[in-house]
């Protein structure tokens, strides 16, 4: 069975500090990987997706970057956090079939103070 693990579970960071969030998928080779952001009580906004190692496509610009250093790993980062970065970050994966279900991790709660 496939599992998706996100770390950390929660973070409280200062404005201007760097951030790195991670995600690992086990039990599935060559998945599509996604990062989503959810404002408190809000909808989900897709941030990035990756179809293969080393390739990441940006969907929206939020002063964040993403990388896929390994087939099963997806990293979200920024060098300088803004207050607007607060929210819930969800990593997800899907099979390489268009329009198939997406499987989400448990998320990371980020509070920028």
């Amino acid at each position, binding site marked *: 069975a496939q599992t998706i693990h996100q770390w950390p579970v929660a973070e409280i960071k200062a404005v201007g500090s760097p951030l790195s969030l991670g995600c690992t998928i086990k039990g599935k080779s060559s998945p599509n990987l996604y990062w989503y952001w959810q404002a408190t009580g809000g*909808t989900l906004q897709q941030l990035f997706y990756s179809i293969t190692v080393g390739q990441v496509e940006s*969907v929206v610009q939020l002063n964040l970057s993403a990388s896929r250093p390994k087939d099963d790993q997806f990293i979200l980062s920024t060098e300088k956090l803004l207050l607007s970065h607060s929210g819930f970050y969800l990593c997800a994966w899907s099979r390489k079939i268009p*329009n198939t279900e997406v499987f989400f*991790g448990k*998320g990371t709660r980020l509070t920028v103070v």
Partner: protein
Amino acid sequence: TQTVSQSDAHVTVFEGDSVELRCNYSYGGSIYLSWYIQHHGHGLQFLLKYYSGNPVVQGVNGFEAEFSKSDSSFHLRKASVHWSDSAVYFCAVSATSGSWQLIFGSGTQLTVMP
């Protein structure tokens, strides 16, 4: 441009009641529609999807949804809700032309009273 609209931000029902959560979409081409559930503080879980064929699709835990091209809708229904169905429900759409982007509606908070 694809858009998804969930007109009800909050729906409150009693246990055992039936419920319908509404979703309307706007897109000119062929699309793929799905519903996800999010319990408080957790990630999303897939409920069901529609791509083609029978417009009524069955999902997990007794949920079903009906696609209507004429109404541009994909409403979610359950005949008898349980308190554990309390959660936020998201409708999502993506283009069938190989897009990897899933666009979510604003969500509907379903509260089931005992």
